[in-house]
């Protein structure tokens, strides 16, 4: 199963999003979070640690969703640090809608690519 990694400068933001995503997708999709540990902010080491933790749970790949700016630079650096043999990809998607769309897609037994695409397509779903 592909796992999701939610990266934010704010701990409250990703904790809340992880709760919401689990509620909507069910318990089958592994979800980890990174960022905002002592104060607002993300380091590459925080993201690398969460990648390792998901890999140690036996996921077959990881899709990363981030909030703004340096979350993505930190995530890219963390992917390099983790040097995983399993695919670890950053998804260009809105954090909340993208994570939910990908998790729900994965919960139906879909592939990593399908989940990634669902995350990216979340940009096109208008609210009004």
């Amino acid at each position, binding site marked *: 199963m592909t796992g999701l990694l939610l990266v934010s400068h704010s701990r409250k933001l990703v904790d809340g999003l992880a709760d919401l995503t689990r509620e909507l997708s069910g318990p089958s999709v592994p979800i980890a979070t990174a960022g905002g540990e002592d*104060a607002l*902010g993300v*380091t*590459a080491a*925080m993201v*690398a640690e969460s990648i390792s933790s998901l890999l140690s749970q036996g996921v077959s790949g990881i899709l990363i969703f981030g909030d703004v700016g340096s979350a993505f*630079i930190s995530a890219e*650096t963390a992917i390099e640090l983790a040097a995983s043999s399993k695919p670890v990809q950053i998804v260009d998607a809105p954090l909340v809608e993208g994570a939910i769309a990908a998790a729900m897609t994965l919960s139906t037994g879909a592939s990593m690519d399908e989940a990634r695409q669902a995350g990216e397509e979340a940009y096109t779903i208008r609210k009004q």
Partner: protein
Amino acid sequence: MTNADFRQLWLCFGQAAAQNKEELNRLDAAIGDADHGTNMDRGMQKVAEQLTSSPPPTLQAACKMVAMTLLSTVGGASGALWGSGLLAASKVFPDMDSCDDKTLAAALQAFVSSIQQRGKAVAGDKTMLDVFLPATAELSQEVDHAPAASVIPPIAAKAKLWAEGTAPLLAKRGRAAYLGPRSIGHIDPGATSSALWWDCLGQVMGASK
């Protein structure tokens, strides 16, 4: 450059980060979130502590240690960019006590290329690269004709001017980019801390003659 020079460079930068913490925060307050000085200072104090308590035996090991320390202690783009750059540089530095001038120039080039790749910024985007790009370009050119000990100090002397030259630029990357034209008129804090680093490199290499 010797391992001792490398250590001295980071101890110097640690002092500079501490002395300029408030100034860097003030510059960052104008176009970012006012923590660049606090972040860099926290990282550098940790680096200084590690270099003093358990000095790595080779240039490569020392560079890698600084990289890993910054990746875990400096949040935001600065930590990831300095960290990735130094990781790339550590692969160029030999696993020995010293390196020749061309290797030093190549390591700095690897540092800059890695930061360009990760941050996707180019010259004139109002970032740390507005100091590092001209400085490493001059170094790579001149190190063929003269020793780094005499080439680096005059380059380092220009770094502050390059940092100040970011003031009229429009920010294209990072948080300051959200401000668009309102970023114009402010000196980039990342370029300013980069100039402090070059000042230290100039001092250390100048003294190594």
